């Protein structure tokens, strides 16, 4: 699925960009200012504008690819500090027994959503912490705590390159983002001059509730159609790990 989407987005982007630059009417689009000076009526000028459009499109596609590659590294570098901070705090909380405590309090919910996680495993605590951070809109804390949760879930995973049911459930709930209050949106509304910037809170809460319910149902329903999960008894699963599941491309 990811392979196909990756190919589709890239191929559509490149071909569409090429096609658009070929087809678009030079008069309608806005060519670079240098070329638009003498585009009145002569065919040679028209020809030049077409070339300009082509080269502009080529350049913008190239820049998009290169800039984004650079941005991704910058994002990761920026993440290092916050990651270190939150994983440090999280480690203290773990050593103090707080994470296990949280997991124990919320055990009924966790057991229902993530039946694969053993009792009192740190994965449960990390998941709860990430969800709490998401609900409160603490994006800076949510990512490190979520990655911590993934690491804990991975430690329970017999097939290290394949997602488990619990991981899928965790990410589906995470991306459907039950947010109690989305402060950033309210802040942007306020900045744009809204009379009542917070008026959207109720609608957001209702909408995210719907999407989270769909996320849970969809994950539960779909997981049996993607049966690369290991057998329930872990000792038999460990033997046949790597080569068995090639069906999900």
């Amino acid at each position, binding site marked *: *699925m*990811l392979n196909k989407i*990756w190919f589709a*987005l890239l191929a*559509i982007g490149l071909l569409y*960009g090429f096609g*658009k630059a070929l087809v678009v009417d030079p008069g309608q689009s806005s060519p670079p200012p240098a070329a638009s000076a003498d585009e009145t009526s002569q065919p040679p000028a028209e020809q030049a504008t077409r070339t300009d459009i082509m080269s502009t499109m080529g350049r913008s596609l190239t*820049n*998009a690819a290169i800039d*984004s*590659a650079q*941005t*991704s*590294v910058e*994002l*990761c*570098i920026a*993440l290092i500090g916050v*990651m*270190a*901070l939150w*994983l*440090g*705090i*999280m*480690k*203290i*909380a773990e*050593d*103090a027994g707080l994470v296990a405590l949280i997991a124990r309090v919320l055990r009924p919910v966790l057991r229902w959503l993530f039946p694969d996680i053993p009792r009192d495993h740190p994965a449960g605590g990390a998941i709860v912490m990430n969800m709490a951070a998401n609900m*409160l*809109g603490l994006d*800076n804390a949510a990512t490190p705590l*979520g*990655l911590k949760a*993934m690491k804990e879930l991975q430690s329970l995973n017999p097939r290290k*390159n394949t*997602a488990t049911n619990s*991981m*899928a459930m965790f990410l589906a709930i995470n*991306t*459907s983002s039950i947010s109690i209050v*989305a402060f950033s*949106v309210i802040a942007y509304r306020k900045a*744009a001059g*809204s009379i009542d910037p*917070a*008026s959207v809170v109720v*609608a957001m809460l209702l*909408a*995210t509730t*719907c*999407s989270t319910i*769909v*996320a849970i149902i*969809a994950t539960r329903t*779909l*997981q049996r*159609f993607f049966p690369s*999960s290991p057998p329930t008894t872990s000792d038999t699963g460990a033997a046949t790990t790597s080569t068995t599941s090639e069906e999900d491309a």
Partner: protein
Amino acid sequence: MSSLLELADLVSQWSIPGIILIVIVTAAFRRVPMYESFVTGAKEGFGIAIMIIPYLVAILMVIAVFRASGALEDTKAVLAVGLRWAGLEQHVQELELIPLALVRPLSGSGARGVMLDLFQHHGPDSFIGYAASVMQGSTETTFYILTVYFGSVGIKRIRHTLHACLLADVMGVIAAFVFASLLFRAV
């Protein structure tokens, strides 16, 4: 409503200092060697952040190229022609929301840009402004999150995760539009 929201904001602003305080007080009470624990945990952060880089480059590059091609913008124009043809003239303006719905799972900053653009052209208190706000607030940058989270532990075969997440996203967008229509469509 407003004062409740201020309270929520206050709780949110103080949650991080509060959590840190609770953690260190409990740790002190249980005699945990805090400094050492912190450093041990923080050390993991570096590895995880570096681990993500190849996955992030792969996904952000594709998204950037796709957006630069202008395919998203033109989808809107094609749909507008379709709606006019179907005689739903009065809904054509609402197609402004389509790029937002399409960009949202791909790019957080891109979606924010589209939303701010809609605020500028229609006003944050128009129906489109309301619907855009609800959409922005009730969905996530799914591809980014899946990439980072799975990348951090080196998982390449994600099974049904993307299907489920995209279904939830579609539901989120539809629900955002429906609830915005129910609550804010005064016209």
